């Protein structure tokens, strides 16, 4: 008889091993899925994981990994702080959108000035946009005890309506022949978040993501606030006795994650995307939730997880084009990754025991 037995202590070995085991299991079952679709499984897996890193055109894909991974890491780092303390910001997508609108709007207000102050101003405005949008669920929670999961999620849809509205009205390109969408910031040097070194994919968003990783690491390991965050997540009652102010923690965690999501949106709109448009957001805010958990809510883990997620996106597109795998199969593949991670996570707190339960 096989049963699960609770471990007295969570297993540290399994905690580190589960992401790796999950990736391997995803490869195995993903391979079966691709084979069932009549595609060569090994070739497909190789295309997804190998081609972007070491394939013939890796010189192009490697920088793209940074472009795709940076917003995921930046958002996930912010989310992980709250998640550790049991504060659930599910609305990063909305904060990402508001960051882009505020950032682009702040810049476009000064079009066509070429002042070097425009870009820094846009950065501040972008962070502010995300922060203020996250403050809504934060204040409602601390004042009226509303559920931040619901409020932050619902505000995503409000943000999407704002996005449609400004794309069609306030920020619409006056030279766009009546079509929706703002001016393209890529063609306006003062506001363009260009590659810092051409061909590397390194833009300010990537730099910020790396800085955020370091800051989060220091915060969690060396700083009182970080200690409070961890304590609240692990033992809320003890945290109360230790003098943690729960309201302040909610404001801090939601505010920080909102500001980082807003920054991600701002760097995206002024760089790779270039334009505020109705379909500007592509789900980074939601994917970042997966990245945060895949990275075990640990800053370094998130960095790796963001890279892995970016890899499956880029490799997935290559597999679609080269092997004609359907897009849905790639999505199932990515879903498997989270599924296996959560499934194997069980082994951190439980172990499989074979035989009859011992009588205590």
């Amino acid at each position, binding site marked *: 008889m096989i049963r699960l037995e609770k471990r007295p202590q969570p297993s540290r070995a399994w905690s580190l091993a589960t992401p790796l085991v999950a990736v391997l299991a995803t490869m195995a079952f993903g391979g079966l899925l691709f084979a069932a679709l009549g595609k060569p499984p090994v070739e497909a897996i190789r295309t997804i994981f190998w081609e972007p890193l070491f394939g013939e055109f890796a010189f192009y894909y490697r920088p793209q990994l940074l472009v*795709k991974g940076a917003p995921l890491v930046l958002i996930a780092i912010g989310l992980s702080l709250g998640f550790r303390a049991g504060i659930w910001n599910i609305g990063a997508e909305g904060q990402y959108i508001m960051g882009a609108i505020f950032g682009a709007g702040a810049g476009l207000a000064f079009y066509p000035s070429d002042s070097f102050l425009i870009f820094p101003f846009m950065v501040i405005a972008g962070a502010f946009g995300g922060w203020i949008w996250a403050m809504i669920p934060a204040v409602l929670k601390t004042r009226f005890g509303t559920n931040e999961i619901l409020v932050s999620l619902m505000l995503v849809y409000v943000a999407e309506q704002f996005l449609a509205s400004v794309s069609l*009205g306030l920020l619409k390109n006056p030279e766009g022949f009546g079509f929706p969408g703002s001016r393209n910031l*890529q063609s306006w040097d003062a506001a363009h978040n260009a590659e810092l070194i051409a061909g590397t994919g390194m833009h300010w968003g990537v730099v910020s993501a790396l800085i955020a990783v370091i800051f989060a690491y220091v915060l969690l390991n060396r700083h009182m606030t970080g200690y409070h965050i961890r304590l609240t997540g692990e033992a809320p009652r003890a945290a109360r006795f230790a003098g943690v102010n729960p309201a302040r923690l909610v404001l801090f965690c939601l505010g920080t994650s909102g500001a980082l999501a807003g920054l991600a949106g701002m760097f995206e709109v002024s760089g790779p*995307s270039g334009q505020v*448009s109705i379909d*500007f957001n*592509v789900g980074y805010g939601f994917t970042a939730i997966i990245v945060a958990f895949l990275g075990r809510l640990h800053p370094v883990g998130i960095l790796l997880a963001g890279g892995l997620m970016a890899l499956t996106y880029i490799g997935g*597109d290559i597999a679609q084009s080269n092997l*004609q795998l359907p*897009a849905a199969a790639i999505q199932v593949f990515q879903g498997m990754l989270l599924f296996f991670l959560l499934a194997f996570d069980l082994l951190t707190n439980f172990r499989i025991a074979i035989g009859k339960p011992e009588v205590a």
Partner: protein
Amino acid sequence: MKLTNLLTSAAVALGLAAGAAWAQDKTKVGFVYVGPVGDGGWTYEHDQGRKAVEAEFGDQVETVYVENVAEGPDAERVMTQMALEGADLIFTTSFGYMDPTINVAKKFPNVKFEHATGYKRADNVSTYSARFYEGRAVQGTIAGHMTESNIVGYIGSYPIPEVIRGINSAYIHAKKVNPDVQFKIVWAFTWFDPAKEADAAKVLIEQGADVILQHTDSTAPQAAAQNAGNVITFGQASDMAEYAPKPRVSSIIDNWAPYYIARTKAVIDGTWESVDTWDGIGAGMVGIGEISDAVPAEVKEAALALKESIANGTYHPFTGPLNKQDGSAWLAEGEVADDGTLAGMNFYVEGIEGDIPQ
């Protein structure tokens, strides 16, 4: 003996080399899709065009596609990837791919690009679109005749010129045959989202609409109309014949195949040039799906007569006298709208209620 061996292997090697060279000669055509190929609408019809290219040229071409590509940096990456992998011609089939297409085209001057529904061109970027408003005129005629509540519901996707043109064209022709007709417009802000589209259809039906026109790509509004009973619809982008004869009484079908074949041929022959194509019913780019038996014979006749007059060029759907919504004059008696105004249309014609979202 050794010599023959050597010769044989040389011949084999030559054969292989020739084979490889032959494979290189294949013209590679890429397609970037905004939705899934199984959407039953917009992307489905582009993919039918791709298949037509394969059927037409067989071994001479190789086609590749990537579906569900978000507009923006993802689209740019997918196009770059296709160009790197040796595509000679790339069709980018959504308006939002415009700037990415231009960006990638700059980096690959030898690759030809074809962008659907946009307005930015370059030496290696053509644009193409269809005069869907011609089909809307036929729909409007049928809708005007068929409605009993005199309320026609319209599911708009995004308030862009193409969609506004369609609303105006349908309204003008519904009004012509039924002066009491009224349009109710709901904006879904999506091209493809079955849940949102179904909600929009239900709202319109609850407001008394017994005809639903849609500029979104899924069959969800058709299903909603079927459940509601006495409501008719029109297939959008694709025939949607599975809902015939009712609620779907006719359809506008995008037929990209002739254009895709012609452009691929131009690349093979080396005669490709950057052009701006805007074809309608006459050229076969816009098809009218079979008008079902749910429509009375005389209505069907009127609709087909209108279709014929548009196809042979004797009638233009935007012919004056027409006023703008605010009552100001737009087209004088007998005057025909020019393509420039149509391409950037951002106003309703007189009689339509409500505002275009800003």
